[in-house]
């Protein structure tokens, strides 16, 4: 669905999404890299568990929330991919304190 609009000579890097290895370019946001990889559902809502994905891509709508390296509710559109980053879908409300 999404294509990168310009070829670049930026460094390639890989990260983990739900246990799968995905590729990104240096400077990509987590949301952009996931959309490019065809991932459209990044979270389920806390109230009805309905599916959500990136919408505004500018830090406003909070629809792209993911868990990054164990920290819940990160905005995927506001965080740049780093090598080896571990990203998971945010399923419902953040769970803290019980583990």
């Amino acid at each position: 669905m999404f294509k990168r609009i310009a070829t670049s000579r930026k460094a390639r890097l890989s990260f983990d999404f739900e246990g799968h290895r995905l590729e990104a370019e240096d400077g990509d946001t987590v949301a952009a890299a996931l959309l490019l990889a065809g991932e459209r559902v990044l979270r389920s809502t806390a109230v009805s568990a309905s599916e959500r994905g990136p919408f505004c891509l500018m830090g406003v709508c909070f629809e792209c929330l993911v868990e990054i390296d164990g920290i819940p509710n990160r905005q995927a559109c506001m965080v740049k991919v780093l090598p080896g980053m571990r990203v998971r879908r945010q399923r419902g409300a953040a769970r803290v304190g019980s583990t």
Partner: protein
Amino acid sequence: MAVQHADTIVVGGGLVGAAISYGLAKIGQGVIVLDEGDVAFRASRGNFGLVWVQSKGDGMPEYARWTRRSADLWPEFAGELAGETGVSPHYYKAGGVHTCLSEEELQARTNLIERMRQVHGPERYEARVLDRRELAEMLPGLGEAVIGGSWSPHDGHASPLHLLRALHAGLLQGRGRYHADARVTAIARDGSGYRVTTAAGVFAAERVVLAAGLANRALAPMVGLSAPVSPLKGQILVTERAATVLPMPTAFVRQTEEGTFLMGDSYEDSGFDTASRPNVMAEIARRAARTFPFLRKLQVVRAWAALRVMSGDGFPIYEQSRTHPGAFVVNCHSGVTLAGAHALALAPMIARGRLDEAFAAFSAGRFDVQAHRDVA
């Protein structure tokens, strides 16, 4: 503009004024609530939301008993309020914990709990000091830094904002009327009652209740009373929402119905300043994160400060005027805890025009000394 009449005028539309007005409307009284407007300091909007018994009234047994009476009334009060208005104040009598991070804190707490046990009576009080292991069983994710604390089954919490909204809805369902932007400029005798002049018109009633928080200081002398209250700033931080993990509130951290964590309990004597300040915010966050380390994973989404309405000894003021029959002053810094008693126990006393004898202890006369009468 025609003068509007009612049985009672309540000056102040915050938690204290609204709870009294709701209680009056509930027993069929006509009530006019005069609210200053959004320029007011609005302590009710900044409240942490505890319904707290275990430590209230150290040094004043009447206040300890009044607080407990309110906590005992809260379940009935919250149920009726939600039933009548459809707005739940999200009250939970879940018990409450005060956590201690050092031996000094725990020793001071142990001494306090023992004093309060004497005040309430051992059978009735039921609060006790718990060690780390007991607390860890009650509170998931409790930090290693917590060495012990105290717990009371009579404590709980509620949403101050939902409570305020429910009280306003409830008073409007009865014979209550609310007027915003009605800053009071004068109170004068009018036959057997009073005429109150405001920025929103003139109102008249048989009785006047001053429940205007810090503004009571200027209003009380208009009816022969005094309200020597001062602001004591408190700051609060709130996190993003998370799945429910805390089964009960603590004095410093509580998880709301919506899932956010409130962190607070700072005390600053800095006049009428209501700004959030990084040094105090950092101290609040540090204590909260030591108490519940999982909070480090959550983002703080809002912070605010509000002004407690404090008397010289920290206890409430309830007084009826000797020179102006039917005029009352009410000041406290526990608008949530005392809401049950204000609505269901205080309002009927005001409706009949007389406080119970035991309320003499809450008179502002206790701040007077012979050499300095009526010191501001």
